[in-house]
């Protein structure tokens, strides 16, 4: 019988690992894309990167300007930013430590080794060589984490809590990437002109969707198609629809409910959201307003997270 505290930790281990990976992807791709742009044709803006990870309020507490260095330092290393990559890895490790008797030895050694590796990175040195080396190592560390857990954990509730945590975090992160990138690319433009290919390519690359886009659409890169791929694609593992489908499967596996029912509010919300993502067309979403759609979606994701916690993790004190 799985302790609530253990389920809670597994869920958050996966969320923090995904958060670290997504932050690394966003930093890596955008950093290089922005440096390629000439300052004359396009105003360099680093602050949207901060907005993607939802830290636009904390950032000004530490830095006057959103320069390349500051943003990289803040998102990757800052120890006062609880969502910096290094802090996320720290959370993954602390949570793993409290449940190390319930994860495989391989998982623990992998996570613990990652923590020690990350602690050895020197921020000044990494900032000097640029984010690629650091970000790439985080990206693959996350892949490795899931490879190791897939190959060593039994497929019990614990494994499903890991999947659920990762899927929920990824859905929310992808929603923010799409939302922020759209606003940035349109706001930064002179009226009537189109953002060039490179920027959309960067968006696609940050969620590992560039090759899929090329194969699926064979066309030049069009903003609507990019959004369609990232939000509605049924098979791309980083699309929102795919993530919500995974989340729904994991929640059902945990509760044991059938395909035409739901056992709790988290499942109901996930199921409802999945229906929308299955049957809506991207044109309909644009017609209703992309921004509003994505804001709503993030709200639903947060509500699902709260209901998972209420159903499985927390015990109310009854006097």
């Amino acid at each position, binding site marked *: 019988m*799985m*302790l609530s*505290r253990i389920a809670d930790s597994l869920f958050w281990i996966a969320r923090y690992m995904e958060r670290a990976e997504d932050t690394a992807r966003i930093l890596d791709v955008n950093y290089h894309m922005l440096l390629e742009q000439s300052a004359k044709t396009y105003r360099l803006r680093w602050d949207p990167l901060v907005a993607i990870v939802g830290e636009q309020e904390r950032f000004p507490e530490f830095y006057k300007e959103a320069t390349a260095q500051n943003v990289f330092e803040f998102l990757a290393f800052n120890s006062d930013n609880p969502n910096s990559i290094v802090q996320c890895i720290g959370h993954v490790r602390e949570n793993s*430590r409290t449940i*190390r*008797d*319930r994860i495989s*030895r391989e998982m623990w050694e992998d996570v613990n080794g990652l923590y*020690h590796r990350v602690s050895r990175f020197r921020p000044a040195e990494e900032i000097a060589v640029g984010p690629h080396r650091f970000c790439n190592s985080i990206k693959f560390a996350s892949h490795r984490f899931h490879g190791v857990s897939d190959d060593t954990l039994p497929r019990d509730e614990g494994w499903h809590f890991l999947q659920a945590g990762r899927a929920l975090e990824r859905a929310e992160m992808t929603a923010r990437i799409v939302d922020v990138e759209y606003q940035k690319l349109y706001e930064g433009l002179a009226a009537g002109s189109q953002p060039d290919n490179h920027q959309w390519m960067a968006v696609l690359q940050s969620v590992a969707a560039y090759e899929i886009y090329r194969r699926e659409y064979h066309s030049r890169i069009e903003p609507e198609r990019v959004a369609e791929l990232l939000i509605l694609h049924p098979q791309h593992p980083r699309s929102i629809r795919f993530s919500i489908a995974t989340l729904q499967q994991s929640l059902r596996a945990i509760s044991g409910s059938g395909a035409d029912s739901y056992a709790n509010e988290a499942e109901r919300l996930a199921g409802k959201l999945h229906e929308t993502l299955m049957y809506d067309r991207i044109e309909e979403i644009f017609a209703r307003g992309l921004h509003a759609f994505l804001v709503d979606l993030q709200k639903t994701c947060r509500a699902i997270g709260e209901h998972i916690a209420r159903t499985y993790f927390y015990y109310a004190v009854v006097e």
Partner: protein
Amino acid sequence: MLRDYDPGPFFDEMFTPDRVPRPHYAKIYEELAGMSVNQFEERRQLADLSFLLQGITFTVYSDGRGTERLFPFDLAPRILPRPEWDHIERGLCQRVFALNLFLQDVYGPQRILKDRKIPRSLVYSCQHFRREMIGLQPPSGIHTHISGIDLVRDSKTGDYLVLEDNVRTPSGISYVLENRAVMTRTFAHAFHSHEVLPIGHYPTELCQILRSLSPRGVRNPVIVLLTPGIYNSAYFEHSFLAQQMGIELVEGRDLVVDCDIVYMKTIRGLTRVDVIYRRIDDEYLDPLAFRSDSVLGVPGVMGAYRAGNVALANAVGNGVADDKAVYAYVPEFIRYYLGEEPILRNVETYLCSEPHQLAYVLEHLPELVVKAVGESGGYGMLIGPAADSAAIADFRDRLRASPRNYIAQPVIGLSRVPSYDAPTKRLAGRHVDFRPYCLFNGEKVTIVPGGLTRVAMQPGSLVVNSSQGGGSKDTWVLKGTV
């Protein structure tokens, strides 16, 4: 690695006083003597890396951000020939039986107090004596499920002596098992050329005892290990044992008591708990019964224990048996309860609560070791020969103010084992003690052959506690005679 090795005036486990390797050390002597510094260093780094990756570390908070340090592990093993071990084993079994009988008695009929074999005032004034336990019969009458009994070898006589008993929540067995695992990897050849008795069955033995305590006649009782959490210095051991036994590792907040039944909070609701292997001290176990400010414990767990709805290992109140003043009476317990002479002797001990003994201690402080009776881990100690006059004066005042709180012992010249000295890059003699782990199921005592050999890493030091910079060694008990 052993060139110019000096056994010194102490009993050296590897060498006779004429610097001839003892027969049971002959093979490891050859292996170590033929090894270059580089080869040794390479293995040492391999071993350290393995401990680091597994997170077998403890946290030092002195620098403000929490640095993780390795428990020093020394690669040169400590070896015991079979006859020596058999003698130790017999002595420990005897002692565990006597300690358990004492606890049954002192919380039961108190025959020993009525027969005046130990002063009632001494027992009742023990810091860890628990009135709440009086009249409470733990399952199968077992109080000391797990004991760690510290032995030292006196250089003068070569005899093993009991230095102290640990029958509350003794720790260290995980290092015994992990040291062995690392040793078989880094010193594979030397290990396989010896016939070393295996120790890997410890978790199975412990788990069987825990299962047998279940108050419910169910096939799969729910057993949990209760830990104070990740900030406890023994946390690694808690999670290690839980994993090895396949039982749940819980914190106080995972448990709840309702109508004298203990439950754990799971994703499917409350699940009844039958047996708690608790690694939390008595004081923190139940804020309703003991310290009310404890947030680590489980409110109401003592009620469930008293009602017989949950078993605790070890039993509550065991501290009265490993109090350092009560220790002086353990040989008497053996005679009183078992009608036998002690197989393993105590270290000579002066009870400062006895006026004439106190007078002797006050006169001879510079030659003695003084220990606070309720402390462990090497805290609250005065080592006379190493202390300055201010420290001695300080202890003199303390002894006069509260004599019951102190005992004194002569300084024992602990035996030594060759150990790696990093600054000079060679093996040098370092003092060791030895803690075997005894499991008691009510009928017999099981001791996995070996135990934790703790080593004082500093030249000349006699303090082996990990909290005071001590390290550890793998301990081999050889099968058959050499």
